[in-house]
Structures are given as C-alpha cells and as structure tokens.
C-alpha cells in the first residue's frame, strides 16, 4: 500500500516517461530545449536561498570572528569574541536557563497535547474533528504579540484572573513576570501546532493495531503506551522538536510574560544587537544556539526514524 503511494509521487517515473516521449517523436531535438525549461524551474529558489539564506548564516558565523573598533565592525580573524562570551558566567547561566525552559516546555506541551490529540483523533465524529482542526488553525492567523499582550491583562497582579480569584476569596497570586508567565506564553506559541502534528500522525494510524491489542487482552492504558504512542512516534517527536526550536529561540514570552530575568539566549541576542554595535558577540550566541538546535534536531530525527529492536 505504502509503496504504491510512493510510486505515484516519485518524479523519477515522470523522468523516464520524458525520455520515452522524446524517443517517440523523431526529428524533434527536444533535448536542446530541455535544459532551459529545467534550469528555469530548478534554479530560482536555489539561487535565492543561497544568496539570502545560506550567505547570511555563513556571514553570521564569519562576523563572530570580527572586531568592533570605534563602533564599527572590522574584518578580522580573532577568537576574542568567542573567548569573551564563552568565558562569562552570565552566558552559561543564560544557556542553562534557556535550555531548561525549552526542555520543560517541550515535555509539558507534548504531555498536554497528547491526550487532546488522542481524543480528537479517536473520540469525535468526522465533522466535529474537521471543525476542531479548523479551530486549531485559527491561532496561526492571529498575532502572537497581540495574544501575549492579552495574556498580560489576564495575568497581571490586578488583572482579570486575580480579580476572579478575589471573588472566590483567595489571591492575588503573582503570575505575570514569573516562570509561570513564560510557560503560559510558550503554551500559547506551541500548543496548537503540537496538537495538530500529533493529530495528523494519530489520524492515519492503522486502527487494526489498536483492535489487535484489545483482542490480545491489553487494557486501555497499556494499549496507549505500548501501541498508540510507538505507532504515532514520528508525529510526537516532530511536534516536540518544533516546540523545542520555537521556545528555545522565542524572546517574546520570556521578556513580556516572564519578566526577562534571568535572561534567555534570545533576549541576550536582542540586547547585544539593539543596544550598541556588539554584533560579533551576538553572532557567537547565535552560532551556539544553531549548533545546539542542530544536535537536538539530529538526535530527535534519529530517534523518530530508528528501527525498532
């Protein structure tokens, strides 16, 4: 079943037919025209992303070795910026804090998203599911900044939630400018996406697996942990990975809901860049972040597609 699908999309099929088509029409030198057409369709994105995506990232790596003299960047090849950043305790504090916050958000968001995605996938009728998916897409069309600001109104000391707590006879609880606030922001940023990604892998799961597990006497919980989660592993891992990438790089939630203390790597970058011309130092932080993300991404893809023993 799977291989049929693959064959249909496989462009090599089309390629082979092309050659046949050329062979069928004698006298036409289509091979001469082919490169223009092919090049015209294949090259634009390659050129664009080389110039405006790969070059800027490489340039970022380059300027991490440059020097700042008289508020201007001067080309150089020195390890000064690296030594400066990696030798400072505040950098490693920020690194550890960012990594811990992002990991925590990844685990919590995935754990909250899974029961939700599971229920939407298996416990709702098709029409209801369609509606819920539509609702999950809606947040992507609202501004993350506006939602963050809205949370400020809910979470602040004399905000909506604390007023409600007051009526119930307790509080006020500090929520804005706390770690809790950061996490509310991270959930706002990631939860809809993670639920959607998990949902897609659960929806296309082979349901006879679940029936088989039940028939073999596995209980509900055992079935979920030993059958459903392993079978939907790719969606769960990809969702978690996106959550990690988004929260690791987010500077809005930690700053406007978490209070900015202690700083995260992304707030360090914005501070270093926006106040003063210390771009080379910011480039060191950015490079460290990219290396971290590459390692995490590589490890999780490896884990998701690993063959089961």
């Amino acid at each position, binding site marked *: 079943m799977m291989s049929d699908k693959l064959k249909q*999309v496989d*462009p090599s*099929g*089309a390629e082979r*037919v092309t050659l*046949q*088509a050329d062979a069928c*029409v004698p006298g036409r030198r*289509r091979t001469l*025209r082919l490169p223009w057409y092919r090049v*015209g*369709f*294949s090259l634009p*994105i*390659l050129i*664009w*992303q080389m110039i*405006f995506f*790969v*070059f*800027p*990232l490489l*340039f*970022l790596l380059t300027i991490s070795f440059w020097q700042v003299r008289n508020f201007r960047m001067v080309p150089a090849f020195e390890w000064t910026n690296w030594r400066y950043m990696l030798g400072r305790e505040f950098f490693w504090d920020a690194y550890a804090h960012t990594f811990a916050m992002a990991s925590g958000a990844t685990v919590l968001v995935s754990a*909250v998203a899974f*029961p*939700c995605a599971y229920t939407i996938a298996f416990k709702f009728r098709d029409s209801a599911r369609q509606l*819920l998916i539509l*609702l999950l897409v809606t947040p992507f*069309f*609202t*501004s*993350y*900044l*506006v939602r963050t*600001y*809205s*949370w*400020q109104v*809910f979470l*602040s000391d004399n*905000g909506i939630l604390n*007023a*409600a707590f007051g*009526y119930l006879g307790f509080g006020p609880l500090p929520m804005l400018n706390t770690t809790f606030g950061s996490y509310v922001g991270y*959930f706002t940023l990631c*939860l809809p996406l993670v639920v959607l990604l998990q949902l897609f892998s659960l929806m296309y799961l082979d349901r006879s697996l679940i029936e088989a597990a039940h028939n073999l006497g596995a209980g509900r919980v055992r079935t979920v942990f030993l059958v459903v989660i392993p079978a939907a592993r790719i969606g769960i891992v990809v969702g978690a990975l*996106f959550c990690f*990438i988004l929260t*690791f*790089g*987010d*500077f809005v939630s930690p700053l406007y809901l978490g209070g900015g203390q202690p700083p995260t790597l*992304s707030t360090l970058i*914005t501070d270093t860049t926006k106040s003063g011309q210390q*771009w080379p130092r*910011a480039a060191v932080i*950015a490079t460290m972040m990219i290396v971290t*993300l590459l390692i995490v*991404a590589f490890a999780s893809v490896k884990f998701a597609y690993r063959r089961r023993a």
Partner: protein
Amino acid sequence: MNEHRLINLVLRGFVVLVFVFIFTPIVGSFVFSFNIDRFPSLPLGGFSLHWYETVAADPAIWRAFGNSLLVALVVALVSTLLGFTAAYTDFRYLFFGKSVYMALALLPPTIPVVIMGLAMLSFLSRMGLSGEIYAVMISHIVMCAPFAMAVIRMRLAQMDPNIEAAAWNLGANQWKAMRFVILPFTAPSIFAALFVTMAVSFDEFAVAWFVSGLNETVPVRILNTLQGQVSPTINAIGTIVFITTMTLVILAQLLLMRRQKKPANA
C-alpha cells in the same frame, strides 16, 4: 461500560479546557479592544470605541499598515513563484544532491527568528539594504517560500505524473504542458499559497523588527508599543488585523470551493 463513558467524558472535558486556553487570549483581546479601561479588570468597564479612534488618528499606524500591505503583496507574489518552481522541480526531477536542494528550500522556518533577524541584519546592512523596506521583503520571501512550496507540493502529489507525459505525447511542448496541464491543476493551491504567505508575512514581527529600521510594519509597531507604555490600542490593531486576515482566508476558501465544483474545460 460506565467506566468507559466516564473516561470519554473526562477526555472530552480536557479537550474543551485546551481550546479554552487557546482561545482565551484571542477572545480577550477582542473584548478588551471595546473596553474603556486602560487596564481592564473585573468587573469590565463600559463599551467604547476610544482605542479604535486612537488607532485611526495615528499617522504612524497608517504608515505601518501601508508598509505591511506592500511587503505582504510583494512577498506573496515572489515567494509563491519561487515555491511553485521548487515544488514542480521536486515533483518532476530526480537529480544528484536533491536532498540538499530540498533542505535549502524547506529549512528557513526552522531557524529561530532572532537568529534569522541577526543574520539578515548583518548581511543586508553590509549590502547597504538594511533599514530599507526591501530588507523586510527579502527576509520575508526567504521565510515564506517554504510555506508556498509545501502547499503547492501537496497539490502536485495528487496529480498523476502520466498526465503531463500524455500532453507531451499529444504534441504539446513542455511550456504548453505547463500552461495547460500543470498550472490549471495547481491553480487552487497557488491561490492558497498566495494567501498563506501573505498572512505569514503580515504577522512576522521579529525579523522585520531587526531589519526594518524606520519603516515599521504593523507587527513591529505592536512590538515597539509593547516595549513602551502599555496601550490597549494593541488590541484594536490586533482585532482589525485578525478580521482582515480571516476575511482573506475565508474568501480564498470560498474561491477554492467554487473552482473545485466547476470541472476544467478540457
């Protein structure tokens, strides 16, 4: 059986809670935008259009809207074009290094926006472009083209490659086959890609914040407002943008549905 129903009830209740969480800030911002108080609390203050009037009277916001619209239009057109060529290349050709090619075409959205912002700022300012509106357009095209490509590629996956080959066998050259076979088939996804990229660009604040200089877009204006004095005009702007975006999305959806009903004349 009773236990089964109880579990289902709990699970559904949990789904409701998740959706309440997701929609709290969205509905909240809508409600606060009509609220007279600068710091809304319970009980809510009276109804007012004050924040909308403030927004309408602020020339900086009008300029930001103009910038955002211009950027979004250019970005939608260019990134959909680039996305289309990339999706078609992936659909039709197999070549050495294709996985690298695809990675280049798809990776930009996975790079954290702060890093993209810093990279674009340092690179474009070296080229003398930073602070210009083109800088925002260029960065957004890099970030949006992958979305356009994904949308169009999904549509192409539904197409039998033999249809294009059949057109060649019937005497159409490659450009004609493109014009009369591929383009009509992918038309709905091209429109969808235009709207999606427009929405992504219209909403992007971080990279735009780094490179836009004095040419603020709407999200950059919101970010700068957030940093300064708290102002509920953010809610009013957010509501206007949300209604605009949703109108675009719903229009696109209606357009697609009408097109799908009418079979192509061929």
